[in-house]
């Protein structure tokens, strides 16, 4: 039997992607040049300002740093704030995939 909505008032449950795949909003994609990225170069947990300032919590503070492009909205804060200029914002239509 198909499940029914039994809620009698509006109660929302947590999920990833509440607003859909917000990566679709993006015009510019953050591309990391790991040869410039501090944690990758120093091989230790360091800097991570991209993780700190990300409004969407889509930056994974590991070695190497990863960005979840499924949900990254492409605001460009990480590229702007990167002290070693390791992130560049590239037009989506100029990305290879």
């Amino acid at each position: 039997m198909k499940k029914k909505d039994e809620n009698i008032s509006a109660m929302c449950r947590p999920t990833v992607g509440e607003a859909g795949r917000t990566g679709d909003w993006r015009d510019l994609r953050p591309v990391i040049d790991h040869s410039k990225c501090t944690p990758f170069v120093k091989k230790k947990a360091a800097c991570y300002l991209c993780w700190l300032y990300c409004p969407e919590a889509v930056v994974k503070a590991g070695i190497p740093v990863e960005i979840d492009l499924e949900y990254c909205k492409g605001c460009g804060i990480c590229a702007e704030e990167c002290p070693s200029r390791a992130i560049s914002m590239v037009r989506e239509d100029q990305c290879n995939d």
Partner: protein
Amino acid sequence: MTDARIITGNQAAAVAARLCDVQVIAAYPITPQSQLAEILSQFVESGQLRAEYVRVEGEHSAMTVCIGASTVGARVFTATSANGLLYMHEQLHWAAGSRLPIVMCCVNRGVGAPWSIFNDQQDSLAQRDTGWIQIYCRDNQEILDTVIQAYRIAETVYAPVMVCYDGFVLSHTMMPVVSPAPAAVRKFLPPYRPHTILDAANPLTLNSVLLPNRRPDAEGTLCDGYMEMRWKLQNALDRAPEVIREVNRSFAEAFGRDHGGMLWTHRTEDAEVILSGMGSLAAEATVAADALREEGIRAGVVGIRVYRPFPAKEAVEAFRGAKAIVLFEKSISYGYEGGLCSDLKAAFYGSGILAPIHDHVAGLGGRDVKARELVEAVKSSLARIQAGERDLKTTWLNCATE
């Protein structure tokens, strides 16, 4: 063990709230409710009632505090009157839409402008469409009993209940009232169980935006759009009469007092003319009906106890057989007629009841309405009806309208 005491309507309501073990009270003083807010403060500060009393800075906040506390699972109580109730209006909708079993006493008073501190029922009637159950009381005993019943109704239906009683006429008038034993009330009223538990283990966001259309959840179950969720409220109120009647029956069994469920009748069996109204005015109409019978006019009374949900089916049964219907209302829908009059006419549509209905607006802003004035009004109505008049415009009783 029961004890009967001579107390005011406000005292009766306060005693009832204490008997119901309310856990959070939020109130803001307004005449004629103030005494109720004061008595409850006395109960809490003297340790007679273990509750959080939030002395809010306004009625909008009073209802909001009730909403917040009820959401996390506390049994809450508030009371207000007139402009205080109007100031709550936004939150009345919010409480009902959140499906919270809040119980509030509305100590009925006329609304400004111009100011009046005295009784009529314009305040609660103006809240008709907020999704609240509205019950109107005749006397102080019924106030006490109805507050207790209201919690059981509210916590079964998951809808808020407004217990309405006339300012000064009941709120400040002393009458003998029997107070049931606390243990018996606890047995009648089980502890409140919220429909949603808010805790860290199950983090929910409540009352978010709903879209016009339905939307699936993470498991693919198609969940309500705004209309479905609002329909659930309507459906709950549609089904509430069953609960209200059952609660009335159980209450009568447990405490020996039957206030009539959705409506009550007085000598209607053979009545050719039926008087009707709500609250203390309907009680006054029973005195008028008895007087009319003394004069050989077979009169009876239907008292509308629950105004929302409207007792349409019961009304058809109760009024059937009447050759004339005379209504007395302490409010009006400006530009038309009394709200009760419109609702009864709508209920009668297609039922075969074709008796002429004469609506009276009476007692606005505390103007006294005596039984003998009701008697005269009924006699005048009957004379006009017997003379063949059918287009009976609403009469403002006891009012200089020239």
